């Protein structure tokens, strides 16, 4: 258990440290930068297909991402509880 918490702490630190060593950075998506790089290499390139549907705003997009994480996390939580319960009945 202690080991798990320690490992989790490392993960949290890995996410937090960049916020301090890169103060003022935009923290945009790496893909947005790739899009710009494509523009630099081939300025004439036009995307030839659009997404069928796009979340109307950044808020709704983050809602959907949060939902995706929540669905996954619920199953993981269920799995952990189920297996521990089964183990106890043994």
């Amino acid at each position, binding site marked *: *258990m202690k080991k798990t918490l320690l490992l989790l702490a490392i993960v949290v630190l*890995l996410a937090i440290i*960049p916020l301090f060593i*890169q103060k003022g950075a935009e923290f945009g998506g790496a893909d947005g930068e*790739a899009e710009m790089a*494509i523009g630099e290499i081939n300025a004439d390139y036009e995307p030839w297909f659009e997404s069928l*549907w*796009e979340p109307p705003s950044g808020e709704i997009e983050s809602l*959907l991402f949060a939902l995706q994480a929540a669905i996954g996390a619920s199953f993981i939580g269920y799995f952990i509880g189920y297996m521990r319960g089964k183990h106890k009945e043994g």
Partner: protein
Amino acid sequence: MRLSIWKCSYFLLALLLVPNRAFAMHIMEGFLPIEWAIFWWALSLPFIILGLRSIRKTIEANPETKMMLGLSGAFAFVLSALKIPSVTGSCSHPTGVGLGTVLFGPLAMSVIGSIVLLFQALLLAHGGLTTLGANAFSMAIAGPFIAYFIFKGSQKLGLSFSIAVFLAAMLGDLGTYLVTSVQLALAFPSEVGGFFASFTKFAGIFALTQIPLAISEGILTVIVMNFLKKYNVSELKALRVFSAKEVH
């Protein structure tokens, strides 16, 4: 009690990592020329079909592993939803396919990874349908295969189980974004310097950002695997996850 601590810290972690503004990380819709889009689709489809067969066979032979297959999917679902800041000052997300690869092999993950990508392409405008073939190849095929060979190789070298899992998940994650860089460089070779100049450029954007995230993914995969080792040893043995030496 210990369970609730585990769960609380998990959700706290999830909360901490959900960013305010979301960005996408795979190749965007329409951003691969049509011939490359078709090429990667054609390359990925056979893996997905073989993956469906592999999953069916595993479930028939070991029906008790169904829950763990669900866990592998859920893990990839969570991890690919978390956009995490990185040392380069931009954000990216882990792939989460390493866990399922160690448990069920790389072919099974070609199906699960593609499902995650399809969900994100349709509902989040993240990645795309035309680029799904290419994104599936990098995240759901190349990443898992890299992870698989690293895992088996580490076991052969006699590294401990946890280290083997860590290296597999971490390098599979990193490999995914290297392959993405190769795909973009092939489609957009630089006028000066050609493929290699472009590759360096894209790899600088994707792969460098990915390094700390890959380490995080390796650690999270080890945490889940430690749990499975404690509570699901029989399933792990049925899936032949341990090397001959570790079984004893």
